[in-house]
Every structure is written in structure tokens, then in C-alpha cells.
């Protein structure tokens, strides 16, 4: 291991709306920064290989794999994890729909699922079930068989679109 690789780096970014200053090993990945350095254990590691989606979080509004994102890429970034999304209420409807529809069993995949689902339901349109399945296909779930997850997301997308449509109608 070279000295260069061992070296630590200083970071400033925001997590869940709070400013964070950290010094971490340069090789650190985002998922470890969250779980080990910031004790945000809501995000999980399932494969550490970019495949399972358990580590999915939002960086600057986009879903990223926490296990593939290096800490060095985070300077100045705005990061949201399930803890902050819960607190802000941004995904309260998704969370309620997941509970109502039993779209989780062990719950290990759920924070990543919610992050992925968030970007889909925010688009404002109502995606088809196929589109939901396609969008969510980077998030592995061993427990549910996916149908309940698709149902929950579809419900939220419809409700949100309905609300927006009504708002639009009022504006018109």
C-alpha cells in the first residue's frame, strides 16, 4: 500500500442538511463515511460491489451507490440519507405506502429502495408498472418478490400526480 493511498483527506459537505467537516482515509467509500464516521446506519451495505443497491443514497439530488462513491468525490456535496429524508418528511408518503402495502420484510433493502423510488415519484408523471420495475431493478430484495414494492411506488406516484394535477387545475 503506497503512502499516497494511505493518506487522509479533509472533507466539507452537508449531510441531511447539516454541515459536516471530516478527515477520513482517502480510500474511504461513502457508505463507510456514513455508517462508520457519521453513525448514519440507516444505509446498508449488501455487496460492496455496486450491484445490490442497499447502499443507495442521494448525492446532489441523484441516486448513487454509497459503496462505489469515494469520499474524495464528496467535497461540497449535498447528501441525503434515509435518516434525513425521514426527518424532513420528503418521503413520508412513500414510507407510509411501504408500511401499508407491506413492501418490506426484513427491511435491509428498504432505505436504498426508498432513495431509488424517490427520484421516480418526483418526476411527476405516473410511470407504468414496467417502468417502475425497470427503474427499481438496481435494488435487490430477497424477501418481498418486488410486487408489493411496485404497488407501493405506483400508489404514491398516482397520488402525487393526482395532487399535482389538481394544483395545476387550480392554477389554470
Amino acid at each position, binding site marked *: 500500500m503506497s503512502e499516497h493511498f494511505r493518506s487522509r483527506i479533509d472533507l466539507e459537505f452537508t449531510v441531511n442538511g447539516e454541515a459536516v467537516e471530516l478527515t477520513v482515509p482517502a480510500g474511504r467509500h461513502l457508505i463507510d463515511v456514513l455508517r462508520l464516521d457519521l453513525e448514519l446506519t440507516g444505509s446498508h451495505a449488501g455487496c460492496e460491489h455496486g450491484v445490490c443497491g442497499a447502499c443507495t443514497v442521494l448525492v446532489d439530488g441523484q441516486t448513487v451507490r454509497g459503496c462505489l462513491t469515494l469520499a474524495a468525490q464528496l467535497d461540497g456535496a449535498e447528501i441525503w440519507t434515509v435518516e434525513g429524508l425521514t426527518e424532513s418528511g420528503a418521503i413520508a408518503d412513500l414510507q407510509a405506502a411501504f408500511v401499508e402495502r407491506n413492501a418490506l420484510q426484513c427491511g435491509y433493502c428498504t432505505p436504498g429502495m426508498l432513495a431509488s423510488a424517490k427520484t421516480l415519484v418526483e418526476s411527476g408523471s405516473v410511470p407504468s408498472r414496467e417502468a417502475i420495475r425497470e427503474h*427499481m431493478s438496481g435494488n435487490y430484495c*430477497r424477501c418481498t418478490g418486488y*410486487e408489493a414494492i411496485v404497488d407501493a411506488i405506483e400508489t404514491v406516484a398516482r397520488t402525487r400526480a393526482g395532487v399535482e394535477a389538481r394544483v395545476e387545475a387550480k392554477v389554470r
Partner: protein
Amino acid sequence: MTIRFEDPNRPNSYIGRTVPRPNAGKLVAGRGRYVDDIVLPRMVHVAFVRSPHPHARIGAIETGAALAEKGVLKVFTGKDLAEICTPWEGKLAHLQGMKTPPQHPLAVERACWVGEPVVAVVGRTRAEAEAGAALVEIDFEPLPAVTDIRTALDKGTPVLHEALGDNLCFRKSNEAGEVDRVFAEAPRVVEATFKTARHTGVTLEPRVIITDWNGADGQLTAHVSNQAPHMLQVLLAGHLDIPESRVHVICGDVGGSFGLKVHVYPDEVATAAIAKIMGRPVKFASDRVEAFTSDIHARDHEATGRIALDENGMILGFDVDDWTGIGPYSIYPRTSAVEGLQVTNLIGGPYAFDHYRCRTSVVFQNKGICAQYRAVGHPVAVAITEGLVDKAAAEMGIDPIEIRRRNLIADDDYPKTTAAGLKLEGLSHHKSLDSLIEAMDYEGLRAEQKDLREKGVHRGIGIASFIELTNPSPFMYGIGGARISAQDGCTVRMDPDGSVVALTGVTEQGQGTEAIMAQIVAEAVGVSPDLVRVVTGDTRVTPFGGGTWASRGAGIGGEAALQAGRAVRQQALEVAAAMLQAKAGDLDVRDGIIVDARSGEERLTLAEVGRIVYFRGDTLPKGLPRELMQTRHFITSDYPYAFTNGVQASYVEVDTDTGFVKLLKHWCVEDCGRIINPLLVDEQIRGGIVQGIGAALFEEVCYDASGQMLNGTMADYLVPMSAEMPDMVIRHVETPTAESALGAKGAGEAGTAGAPAAIMNAINDAIRPLGGTVTHMPFTPERILRALGTITD
């Protein structure tokens, strides 16, 4: 007093309703507490050096460089740990002739599979432990490996464990009737070979354990992602020479289990041994590559099967020769013979016939250890049975539904003992089949299939009936000497505010244990489910129990909860009767209020009973029993197992150019007895079906002929993802078991049991007219194109 389940308007009618899971809210908020989330003071991390060889003698071990690495604290070899930890043998006394050698937490003389832990390196952080592990040098002398199943017993094949004499772990034949005569004389005999690939559980949360030895108390605490805390308590105590009472196992949130987390793993025992040596908390968190090589594998069966029928398509008998390779050791303590054993019991399970033979040969190989994984043996037996039934139907020109109608055991023919010797209390194959046909519009689908066939679109319909073993009695493990509890217990306690706590020996891994326990106890006591808090997974706190496996949680743990809840209700009524100067028998508890049973007039709240009992006991008659805390245990005794039944159907489209299978829709009608929470049961079945779909289409742990694993990552071992999965229609028939007041049987494994066969039959229904069939799972595009003759090399 019995519960009038047939009356949905009865008071406190929570059993049978969809009630949200009390623990789901914290999980969607990221507030779960899985073992890897736990950090203890002074905690260190262990990483394992694993064998890169399928079979090798272990020579000198050079640990100097590892110990010199920054942050590395200790290095342990197999010999080191053997000094404080006794080896184990995964054997059961009732499985006659079974052999398996002693297994240590770290390999001592030989490494017997790729991934076997050989050296443990302890570091301040996981990264430091892993860096240290990379510096350990082991002098391996490679030995010949055994990998093929069918030739494992041949003379020319090396013997994996010399002391055992040969590579046979276990062999059992189950025979009834006159198989040879019947098959010689039968008007129709149909034969096929089947393979179910080697799978692994791929729980999204890999295995993880933290063990902490507190020398001052002489106590070991283990936080572990596991399904059977009391079993682990007893076994860790035994092998590490600690009194059972001084081992405390805690299973908090578990990120999926499916049987994978019900076993004793060498690396986890090593972690406990190391904690005992170092006197501080040690964490082992498996990574995904370790998961593929060291988690249990399952299935890996090859079978030749025959079915004999008369000229009317009535089944006369089955004759199956099943072979399975289980790796180098039988799993501890459940043994690796049970999957094969289940096959010998379950072939032909749904059908009425008299002549039966099924032999299983369980052989050792230099691959990962195979063991119990969701639906143990069932997917294998159902695929063989239903593959043969469909092949016979096709050859005889009988519709697949019709041949099943003719042969399924009649719904009024119970109790019945099958030719294989299974005692069946009551099943509903015909009712379930009727419901399936209606749900899927079988005739309509057949018409659509025919139309599309003319347009060159090849669709297929596959049916699979099955039975499923649930609610096991001690006949499964206890009689074999394993300290695995088949009974389970529940303590129900009413607190001063009238709320209730239920402590149960069954565990939660996402099935919804906490929800159904809350529902059952709520109905039993007479309070709303949100007033019931459920505690699971702590050996210090809950009654001694078996945990959650073999679809036993609802049927066994649920009945204990019902009885304990009713005992608390009765006690509360006795106290209330004393307070009201009434008779307990004239009172009832409804929604937290003591009422006059006949008029429904409200008399007193449970909270008032609680206040008097806990704070003003002086006002009650001296000597009046007032224990608002009751424990009940339950064990099944009339039947060794409560069998359930079901039938699944799959509708697929096969692209005959590419070999790809598109899953269009899936149906399942299931009879798990009394349903406690319909939504949870449905989602158990859906999740199970998708695991079965994985088995049929994607999943296979691949080894080369030398025993090297070829696909140890999630990019290479394919699992079902949302895009390819179908929507699934789930329906139910309810035939409650009379063994318990609750009447519940298990539901967690049915989906996995039947789905692979349904999909196999659907694919074959699609491609049979083109001249091919497939019976070797998974049905990859390549295998389908080979069956079609498109690929021939």
C-alpha cells in the same frame, strides 16, 4: 372457551385481519438495528484467511508479517482455537449410518473447500484485520478434490475423509408396495432425469456476529444475525465450555435468513472463541465474496425418476433415485442429510397411489457445505414429481389439469397416510385446483396460447401441486439428539395501564412475527393490537424456544401466544370479578374494557384492574391470585408435521430465437390453515415464489471440475431483480389444523416449494411442440436453445 373464527364480527377479532406490522415503521425510517450497526466499547474486528484450494493439506503458517501490520492485534490458527473450542459433528442419531468427521472453527490439518476459514486475524478495524489477513502465508499442499456427485462413490474417486472409508455421508431408501412388479407390468412408464442447481441464500444482509466475553461475570454475549437464538446459546456454551446459563444470545433485526442463518458456522464460533481468549468484543461481518463461499449452499440434486400409470392415466407408483452433494462436512447441528431425506418423503406427495420407492444418496465433495435453505427438499421433490406427471400427461394426451384431477388425493380422504409414510391430517388439493383454474381462467389462457402459437408465439402454462411440511415436532431433530427445540413458549404480561407485553421464543426476520404475535395476543387478551408490544430474539428474556424455521412461527409460537394471552385474560377477569363482586364467567374483555358478557355493558377498564393489582393490591381479597403474567408452551403431538398444500401456475413466453423466458403471470392457491394476517401471508408467498423463480431461471453456484468457485459475486450469481419478475395472484383455502385452537400451519416456504416446477412445466408446455424439453435447472437461454436443437455443440 373457543374463538368463533367463522364470525368476523366477534369481539376483538384481530386474528384473520390485515393489521400493519408494528416494526415496519422503524425499518422504513432507517431505525432498524442490525448487528453490523452495533459498536461496542473496545470492540475489535476479525477477518479470516480462507482456503483458496478445494482440498489441501495445511503446512507451515507464517503470521509474522500480519502481526507486524499496523492495527493487527492477534492472529489465530486452527490449532490455537482447538485448544479452547471442541469440534462438532453434524449427525442425528435417528439417521442411521450417517457419517461426518469432526469439524473445527478453523481448519486444522486439511482445508476441504474453497472458502473454509483457516486463519483468523484480529485488527482494530475491519480494514486493518483484512490487510493483516492478506499478509498471512499458508503453505498449502493441494490434494485431489472430489467434485462430481454421481461418481463420488466410484472406486477410482479419491476418498475425501480417509477415516470414513468412502464418500458416502448418508443413504436412505423409502419403499412401499411392489415397485419392481408394478413398473414391469404398468401400461405406461415415463422416465426423466432432473437437476436442481446448487443455490445459496443471498440474504441481503450477510452473516454478522459480535461476541463479547466478560471475564468478571464469566459470561459470553453474542449479538448475531440468526434465526435460532436458544439453539446457538446451547451450542456455543457446549463447545466453549461455558455454562449454558452464562451464554446470552441476542438476535435483533435480521436482514433476511431463509434458513441460511439457522446453522452453526465455523467463522462465527471462531469469533466467539476469540472473544473468550481476548476478553473483549469481537465483530465478524462477512463480505459478499465470503458469503458466497462460506454461507450454506443448498439443493444440488441430480435424480432419475420414473412414474407408472394405468391406461386411464391413474398413477400407480413413483420410483426415484436421488443424489446430492453436500460439501465436505454435514452441517451442524441439523445435518446435511435432511434435504435428501425430505425428497425421499415428498415425492408424489399430493397424489393417491400405492407403490413407492425413493432412495437418496448424500455424498461428500470439496465444495461449500449444503444445508437447510427455504423449503428444504421440497423444490427438488416437487420438480421431480410434477415434471414426471406433466411428461406422462403429455405422452398420454391428457390435459395437465385433468391428470391432476384424476390423481390428487380426494379432499374427503383424510386423515391419510401416504405410500411414502407421511401422516396427513387434512388437505384441500381439489378445492385449491378449482380456485386456481378460476383465478387464471385456464380455458381462456389455453385458447390464447393456441391462437398465439399459430402466430409463432410460444407460450406455455405450467401447473405444480405440492405439499409442504410445517410445524415440525421433535421427530425432525429432537429424537436425533440435537438440542433444537420443537416446542415454543410465550409469556404475556399485562402492565398497569392495561397494555400488554408478549415475549416469544420465535424470532422475527421480516416475516411479520411481531405483527402476528400482536394480533394473536390482542385477540386472546381482548385489547387492541397497538397495545401489545412484542419482544423476540433474546435468550435472557423470552421463554426457551426453537426460533423461526420450518414454517413453525405462526403454528407453534402462535398457539403458545394464544394460550398465554387467554390465561392473562382469565386472570384479569378473576380479579375484576372480585372487584365487581361478580362471577368471572359472566364477564368478558372487549377492547381493553371488562364488560358484562351477555349485555356488553361496560364495567371496568383493564387499566383499572392494572391499577388495583399493582398499586392497591390491599383492596383485593387476601390470597386472590393476581398474576397478570402467564406463560404457556405448545408442542404438536398428534402429527409429526402439519402438512399444508397448494398449487401454483405459471404462464410464460419463450423466445425460441434467443432462449429467453418471459414470465407473464404467476398464480398460487395455498392452504396454510388458519390465516392470521392475510397481507403478510400473501407477501410471504410472493417472496417465496420469487426465490423459486430464481431457482428455475437464474441461480447456480458454479464450480469447475477442480472445485474452484466460478461465480462468487452478485454480478455473476444471478438473483431475481424487479424488472423480470411477474405479478402474482395469491388465493387461499383454509383447512385449519385441529392440533391447536389457533389452527395455523406454516406459510413461509410454499412459494419456493412449488414455483420451480410450475415454471419448468410452463417452459416445457411452450417448447414441447417444437420437440424439446428442459429438466436441468436453471433454465438458462443456452439450455433452452440446446433443448430446441438450436445449439448443438
